[in-house]
């Protein structure tokens, strides 16, 4: 039997974060597991109404974001005990039916940082992000930590474009970093890869596989991938079994449970030095095995040169 799942996104579904949820749910729908409906670009003011409307309509599971509206989401969840909620949130799970997740893909970011640290010739690495929120900050810090671990001499430039959504602007920021001597870019936002391509330098992707999806061939060495499939599928199966509980899905977005991974190197497979590839593989195993932990640091990162 099918259940109905609703996605509620505060950004258009091209925004990578929401795209990741959307794609996972869409995959489940294509597989015939669920009926899937969604609303995108729902402002926070409207979010609660939309949430209540779906809940009222009797969807079985709602997947979405509670960032900034955690309190109200908890109220709604309480009002509809028969609906399961899996929400991106910084707070913990609540009640009987509100599970939370966040994207913890800092681990593959650390791995990418290691490669970047080795590949940079100028010892200068640039990073362009949207806003300095925790979700972004921790990725930047992990990336920097990874790079430092193999090359203590690297320095970083950090920029925030002040929008989730302005690729031309992200591109301009990236250009400015390249002018300042950066020869590797971490592309937290769309637009950065294009700058790297035009300037003939390398880049690392974020959330989705930018080598394949954002015209990153020969530019994007690897991307830190976020997979919501395992988390979403877990939630769906729990709902189907009527065993859905309030849980923290944090682990489901980390490497050990397949929620995050480092993308393949594709054409860079042969261009990367063997020793660093080996070291990355080794660290990845250690992370998965739980013997190595990448530190989570949500502080706003700053340029170091």
């Amino acid at each position, binding site marked *: 039997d099918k259940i109905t799942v609703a996605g509620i996104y505060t950004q258009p579904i091209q925004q990578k974060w929401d795209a990741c949820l959307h794609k996972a749910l*869409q995959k489940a729908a294509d597989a015939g597991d669920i009926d899937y409906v969604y609303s995108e670009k729902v402002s926070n003011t409207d979010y609660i109404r939309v949430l209540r409307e779906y809940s009222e309509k009797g969807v079985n599971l709602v997947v979405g974001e509670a960032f900034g509206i955690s309190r109200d989401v908890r109220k709604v969840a309480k009002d509809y005990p028969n609906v399961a909620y899996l929400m991106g949130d910084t707070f913990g799970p609540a009640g009987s039916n509100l599970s939370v997740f966040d994207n913890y893909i800092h681990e593959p970011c650390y791995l990418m940082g290691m490669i970047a640290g080795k590949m940079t010739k100028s010892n200068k690495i640039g990073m362009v992000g949207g806003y300095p929120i925790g979700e972004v900050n921790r990725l930047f810090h992990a990336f920097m930590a990874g790079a430092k671990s193999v090359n203590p001499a690297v320095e970083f430039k950090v920029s925030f474009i002040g929008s989730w959504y302005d*690729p*031309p602007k992200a591109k*301009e920021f990236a250009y400015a970093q390249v*002018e300042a001597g950066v020869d590797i870019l971490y592309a937290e936002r769309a637009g950065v890869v294009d700058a790297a391509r035009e300037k003939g330098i390398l880049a690392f992707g974020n959330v989705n596989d930018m080598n394949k999806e954002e015209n990153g061939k020969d530019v994007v060495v690897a991307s830190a991938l976020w997979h919501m499939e395992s988390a979403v599928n877990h939630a769906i199966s729990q709902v189907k079994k009527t065993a859905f509980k309030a849980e923290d899905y944090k682990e489901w977005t980390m490497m050990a449970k397949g929620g995050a991974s480092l993308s393949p190197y594709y054409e860079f497979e042969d261009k990367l030095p063997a020793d660093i590839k080996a070291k990355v593989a080794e660290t990845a195993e250690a992370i998965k095995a739980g013997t190595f932990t990448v530190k989570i640091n949500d502080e706003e990162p700053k*340029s170091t040169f």
Partner: protein
Amino acid sequence: MDILQLFLETGFWVAMVRMATPLIFGTLGELICERAGVVNLGIEGIMAAGCMGGWMWVFLGGSLWGGIVFAACIGIAFGMLHSLFAVYLGLSQHVSGLGLTMLGSSLSAFVFRMLLPKATTPPKIVPFAPLDLPVLSHIPFLGEVVFSQTALTLLAFAMVIIVAYILFKTPLGLALRMVGENPMAVEAQGLSVLGLRTAAVCAGSAMMAVGGAFLTLSAFDAYYIGMVNGRGWICIALVVFSSWKPYKALLGCLLFAAFDAVQMRVQQQAGMAIPYQLYLALPYIFSIIALIIMSRKAAYPKALLIPFRKGER
């Protein structure tokens, strides 16, 4: 690195000109409308529609220049709507404009979603390539800053000259300016007030849409919903800043883009204790300051915002 050194870098100047390009189109477009006495607050939406439409044209197999023309056509369509409401019926220019902004932004998102329902990663096209002109592109500095941009940037510069020429040297331009000063004077000389205003609004809107299309066909290669991101509003400010003069408008666009480029470079300096939001705010704050300096005696078109209805006084 200190700020002065920044101005020695060619890259800074290149960035300035590149970032100014969509603003130049938008500002000139708005300037033409306002010279004819019609404020077009639809600019943000028209840019969004041009941004999406031009890209979609190319994505569906059309040529790049075809995309530009298509975007211009979309702009004209919106311009006609604005003319219908604000010129022919003489309704509030503010409401019509804001309504069109709402319509343009949401309709382009809707159409994009209908045509590409599955697109999560926005698909890409091959955008305009930077020019490599025989001699011009190799002039030191200038070659890089101006002549190695894409063709659209050169078009924008050309438009400044063309618009200035038309406005101030041709009979049509005289009529356009006059219709923004006193429509009765135009009517009394046997010209059609409504026709001239419609023409101006359509031409201006077409330029706005092309400015939008620059974002997806030159500055970037994919369409994102919400990508115009307030650039249209900036253009409105720049028109006032320019005292409705094309060359000053160009100057204003370059200046604004320069603030933006400076902001980007200063923000990422190490040891910057100042929050990045302040840098992002700099272009706006400097625009206001520049406006204060410029507009002591700004003479705006006298008939701006005033509808003309034949047989009424």
